[in-house]
Structures are given as C-alpha cells and as structure tokens.
C-alpha cells in the first residue's frame, strides 16, 4: 500500500529527473583518438581509457576502456584465456578515479585493444552515460598505457550539450596523438 505522501514524492522525483536528464537527447559526441604508429622493437597495442570529469576533475562517467581480452599464448592462440585485467592499474589516473571501483567487463564500456591509427567513438545523448549528464562544463580525458612502453593523459575541455557545435582538440606527445572532440547540441 503506497501512502499518498509516497505518491507525491515519487511524482516529484520524476519531475526532477525529467528536468536534469534528457536535456540533450538529440545531442552527440564524436571522439577521435590517434594511437601513434611507433617504431619500436616490441610493440603492443596500448590500453586506453576515456572518461568524463567535471571542471574540478572529479569523475563523472566512463566512455570506453580498451584492454586485452584474452591471452594469446603463442601462434595457435591457445593461451590460458586469462584476460588482461591484471594490468588495468597501469592506466594509473583512471584506475584511481574509477577503475578500482569497477568489476569487469563493464557493459557498453570495455572492449578489446585497438590497432595504431585513428579510432572513433560516437556517443549519443539518448543513451548512457550522456542521457543523464547534466548541462555544464566538463573534461574529456583520454589515458593510454602500453606494455614495455609509456603512459600519457590528454584532457580536452567541453560544454554539454552547449548552444552550438563545438570542435576541440588536444595533443599527446608520446603514447597519444591528436584527441579531437566534436559536440553537437
């Protein structure tokens, strides 16, 4: 039996959610991340994490996390099948902000590592996590860490959803190339 006061509370809550979310259901974020081609004797695809932070750099939401899904274990690929979650803490900034709080895989976020080149990620305002992202100023953060290589973080500021289309870029110097973000309201 729901009391009348609970019903009032519930409808009030719906109104609140209705105003804070859905502000940008038609809005989009298009991210392109350049994973540089490196002339090294031993190249492994980097682990990459992308997430959103508030202006004060507090964590908001994960967008993508790429890590080795299965251990190859030789030419036949008959490895132990052990996933590469063991090394996720090498994405050191992300690990502290969010990674250590998670269980893996994360639905809609985690996936396999990507080859060198330009990688695209498209997110729409009608789906998580953007559907619940309040209007305001944020950072897009991209972190890459490579086995037997280095680690780098690139931050790009943006406004969500913004009044007009935004195009912002950041540039890494070692493990990341250009990080480009296009936001359309």
């Amino acid at each position: 039996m729901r009391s009348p006061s609970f019903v009032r509370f519930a409808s009030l809550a719906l109104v609140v959610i209705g105003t804070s979310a859905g502000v940008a259901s038609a809005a989009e974020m298009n991210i392109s991340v350049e994973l540089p081609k490196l002339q090294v004797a031993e190249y492994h695809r980097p682990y990459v994490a992308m997430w959103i932070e508030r202006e004060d750099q507090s964590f908001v939401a994960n967008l993508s996390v790429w890590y080795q899904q299965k251990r190859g274990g030789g030419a036949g690929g008959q490895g132990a099948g052990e996933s590469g979650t063991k090394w996720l803490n090498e994405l050191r900034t992300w690990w502290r902000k969010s990674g250590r709080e998670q269980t893996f895989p994360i639905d809609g976020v985690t996936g396999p590592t990507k080859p060198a080149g330009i990688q695209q990620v498209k997110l729409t305002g009608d789906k998580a996590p953007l559907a619940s992202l309040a209007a305001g100023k944020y950072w897009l953060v991209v972190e890459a860490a490579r086995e037997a290589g280095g680690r780098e973080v690139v931050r790009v500021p943006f406004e969500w959803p913004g009044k007009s289309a935004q195009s912002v870029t950041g540039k890494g110097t070692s493990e990341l190339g250009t990080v480009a973000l296009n936001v359309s309201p």
Partner: protein
Amino acid sequence: MNRIHERVAQAIAARKAGSRAFRVAIAFALTAALPYAAEAHRPFIVPSETVLARPGWVTFDGAVSNDLFYFNHQPLRLDNLQVLGPDGGLVEITNSNTGRFRSTFDVQLQKPGTYKVALVNNSLNAQYETAAGERRRWRGTVERLGDIPADAKNVQITQQQQRNETFVTAGKPNDVVLKPTGVGLELVPVTHPNDLVAGEPITFKFHLDGKPAQGVEVEVVPGGTRWRDKQNDSKYTTDQDGQITMTWTTPGLYWVEADVRDDKTSVKQAKSRRASYVAVFELLPP
C-alpha cells in the same frame, strides 16, 4: 658491534669447555646481540607491488640494514609475522625463506581489498650485574624472567613493543585492517596507505595504546639512499590529535619510523617501555 664480538669471543672460548656449552653460549651471544643491532639499523618489509588491479600474488622482502632498501646487513626474522586480509582474518604466508641478507615470503591476495603485513614483537630487555660484578644483557619473554640470576644487582628491565608493517591492495581498497589494535605505537592511516600520490597531502595519525599520541617525532626517509649523498630524511611531530600531514614529491618507496619511551609497561617487572613503529609505503606518480 663491539658487544657482539665480545659475546662471540666468549662463546668461542666456551667451545673448549664442550660443544653443548658452545651452542648455548653462541645462541646467547646472538639473542643478546640482535635486538641492539636491530635498534641501530632500519628494519623494513618491501612488497613487490602495492597496488594490484585484481587478486593475485605479491612477494615480500624483509631485511635490516642502514641503507634503504638494500639487503646488506641482516635478514628480518619472520617469527612473529602475520598478514591480515580485507575481512580482518589471517592470510596464509607461503614460501618463507631466511637467507644471509634478507627474508622472503609470498602472499596470495585471494579477495579484493587491503591487506596488512605486520611483524609484531613484544619482548623484554634487561641489563644487570652478576654477583661477581660482571655486566650482562638479557632478552626474553616474561615467562623467562627467571633466567636472570636471583642475586643479580642493578637489574633494569625494559619492555619493547615493536611493530613493522606494510600494506598492499588488490582492486578496490578497504579499511578493515587499518583499524588499530590498541597495543603499543601504531599508525592509523587517514589517507589510505595504498592511495599515496606524489604532490598530494598525506595524513597519518599515531596511536599509543589505542589513543592519539601527541608530540611523537616521526622520521621519513625515501628509498634509494645508495644513489644519493644525503639521507633526505624529514622529521614531523604529531599534533594534539596524533596527526602529521606531509606531501612527498618523488615517487618511490618511503620508510616511516617513530618511537616512544615511557614508563607505561604492561609487565610489572619492567620499569620502562620502548614502543616503536616502522612501515614502508609506496608513493605513485600522479
């Protein structure tokens, strides 16, 4: 070190009196010498890593030396070592070995959370003169106090409470093992010990017998002393809440030490107490 040489010399002299006497004498020489050696040098337990992404194995080195963190003097005796898991329960220690310069052991972190590795010693040290006027030192437990001759003169007994710790975390950190036991000098982390990042303030609290300890001097020495000319040690004094706050700038391993001398003994024969605390922490880059 002279005292050790003296005892060993006595022991070798005793060899002539028969092999059993020799064994007893050499054992006495070593037990008498070790606590003083440990006092003058720096004990430490160093984990192979402190932050793991998921449950797995960690190996540890334990040694006593002047130089941090090098194995060049004595291994750490592991007799009173314990590892507590994220739920506060005891965790198995495997592959223990004590070599010439260091001890090693492995721990499997089977569950996510924070683990505490602690070597806790509670012993008595005595100085006395025999009826013949010879000075002697003794180390043992309260049950063995009878070893001190009944006719000994100027008997001075000190209670020693030593705690030597380090922390490791698999996955998400938790704080069950960070709660103090209430015995001796302990570090109560305010900043989680596996969440230390260069350039960010770190706050630690010290407790003596479970209560905040004001005015305790805490020494911090970064590892890697062999590769620099100075110790680069820092000293901090705990405030009225028993707290110190500091910022470490260079990523690496850090050695933290504090000790308190007072007369609050839990053994009535002991008139003074020395409670000491040592820990090793890893500072990660931002």
